[in-house]
């Protein structure tokens, strides 16, 4: 009797446990996998002057034969088109270039900032932490508009430069790569600082003392101990910045030039300007595949790390 009840209890619990595990998978399937499959399907379709603006449209009600016909109408020609037109390749390269460059800048600025935060006196750390997060309390879009104001010919930046006699004639900042880089570094800095701060903050300080005890001057202890141990934070921060920057649309659109577009802008133009949903979808799918690569590399490094020094 007792035993049966126990077994029953375990049974129930395992069902409950399974359900809990299932929820995130259901979520991912419904709101990520399904929409992605729709995008993939559209990327294999053709443009059409219709509603929706592509063919074929799957219609399950029309029967099996018509579905089969629709399937055979799908093709990879949009992907071939992406490869044939220099515009798209240039756009991808531009995005990767901006993302790589600004991630590097973010690292150079973010690491010392995070290091300073982690080494600040305990009672100051919450204050510094809030200061880093504070910009989030204002809308992202408004902050970028503020930068437009600063970058204008008679904007704050040029006023300061003129007042300090660094320049004689006010240079143009808007619609330059410099403006894009500044805007991106400004917007993404917290995403770089916070993960690095988190790893540095929980690092055992006696490790530095141990390094000193074993013959390391401070700078060498930093190089041999602090830096390697902050690697997970650095990688997390770099991914957290690099991936969204590649697809960034707002910042280059508002601050950058229209000469060379980043892939986000190209996608937007295809979708809303040219109403070419299939090509826009193909652009999106290729972008996604591009971004999966660094994540896979990161995971590979993680598993190798966990396996020990072998």
């Amino acid at each position, binding site marked *: 009797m007792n035993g049966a009840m126990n077994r029953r209890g375990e049974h129930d619990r395992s069902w409950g446990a399974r359900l809990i595990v299932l929820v995130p998978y259901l979520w991912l399937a419904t709101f990520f996998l399904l929409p992605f499959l729709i995008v993939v399907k559209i990327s294999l379709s053709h443009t059409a002057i219709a509603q929706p603006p592509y063919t074929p449209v799957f219609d399950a009600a029309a029967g099996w034969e018509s579905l089969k016909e629709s399937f055979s109408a799908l093709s990879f020609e949009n992907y071939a088109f992406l490869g044939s037109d220099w515009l798209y390749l240039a756009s991808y390269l531009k995005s990767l270039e901006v993302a790589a460059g600004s991630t590097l800048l973010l690292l150079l600025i973010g690491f010392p900032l995070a290091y300073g935060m982690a080494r600040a006196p305990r009672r100051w750390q919450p204050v510094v932490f809030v200061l880093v997060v504070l910009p989030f309390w204002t809308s992202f879009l408004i902050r970028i508009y503020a930068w437009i104001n600063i970058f204008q010919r008679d904007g704050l930046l040029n006023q300061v430069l003129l007042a300090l006699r660094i320049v004689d004639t006010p240079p143009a900042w808007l619609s330059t790569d410099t403006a894009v880089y500044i805007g991106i570094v400004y917007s993404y800095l917290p995403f770089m600082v916070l993960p690095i701060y988190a790893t540095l903050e929980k690092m055992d300080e*006696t490790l530095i003392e141990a390094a*000193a005890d074993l013959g390391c001057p401070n700078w060498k202890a930093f190089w041999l101990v602090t830096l390697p141990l902050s690697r997970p934070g650095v990688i997390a921060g770099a991914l957290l910045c690099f991936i969204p920057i590649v697809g960034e649309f707002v910042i280059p659109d508002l601050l950058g030039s229209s000469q060379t577009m980043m892939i986000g802008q190209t996608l937007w133009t295809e979708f809303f300007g040219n109403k070419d949903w299939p090509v826009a979808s193909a652009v999106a799918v290729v972008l996604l595949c591009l971004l999966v690569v660094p994540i896979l590399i990161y995971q590979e490094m993680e598993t190798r790390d966990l396996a020990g*020094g072998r």
Partner: protein
Amino acid sequence: MPYPASVAGMGNGGADSKDDPQGRGTRRTFAPWTDPSARALVRFDGVSKQFAAVAAVERVSLDIFAGEFFALLGPSGCGKTTLLRLLAGLDTPDEGRILLDGEDIAPIPPYRRPVNMMFQSYALFPHLTVEGNVAFGLKQEGLPKTEITARVEEMLALVRLEGLAKRKPHQLSGGQRQRVALARSLVKRPRVLLLDEPLAALDKKLRGETQFELMQLQGRLGLTFVIVTHDQQEAMTVADRIGVMDHGRLIQVATPPEIYERPNSRWVADFIGEVNLIEGRVVDVGASETVIASVAAGRLRALSPTDAKPGDAVWVALRPEKVRIAHAAPPTDGENCVAGQVGNIGYLGDLSVYKVRLDNGIVMKAAVANVTRLVERPIGWDDRVWLSWAPEAAMVLTR
């Protein structure tokens, strides 16, 4: 750093046990602190250190000799770890000097001191393998690769960690990690090895074994060890001498038997082992014997050297194992004995501890070795018993 070429020649302290490769054989005669001409390897000279207006170490003066195994013992927060960190150079003293081989080491940064520390948390580098951790200190010296490899191997063999060289710290057990930490701090052959609670994280049995291993290692390598511990048994087991600390001050420095049998204060007597304290007043001081009158236990005789004068308030300290317990009154004429009722019996296996409530309400402890297998206790709860002790067992303390 000029290291002696071989481990056997590392004594550097003169004619002590260092010629004995097996270590403890000649320990009997190792007592450089009794030799006024012997020069200390480490000398603390009036060292003080404050943290936020709290004195962590207060005017500590202490000599530690080459080849010595010295234990700093005290309750947590007594300043013993700070003293170690001052020697390692991880903290700087506010006052006083620290001399190594007669030379003030104040200007030497921690990374150039010929002193290594084993940290309480072990502080192993999590991103390096066992091998990498042990080799870390040698690499900083810029030694040739082959020598580093050889010395790391030798050290791993010494602490019996061969075969685990490629593991990372998180893949090791607590005991193995402790050995890596030990190997890492030993591999540079420091003039003084500092051990900060090195065994605190191990379970009791492993701790006991490791204590003896540490002693063997110290004897074999002929190095000077300074260990910090809060465990008085551990200090008694491993050390040549113990420095008992409380509130930043060094209360007593002596060999383990001296600390136990001749504590210089009630505090030390109470901190090291169990003790019964009886308050009294000196009646007479003879050549070797002191007579004390107490309210709790009447007239007491103690064969214990003291500088107390007649009329002084003193305490007679008695170790429980030196107190006899019996049903019958002892054949003394009422001296060094008290009567009471057994209030509690603690059976510890090897010992039985009796808590006896005296007629005036004071509780005294007597410990009796269970030399035969206990079938029936000769002395039971609520029994009326007599406690007695020899004059040699009593210690007279003036503070």
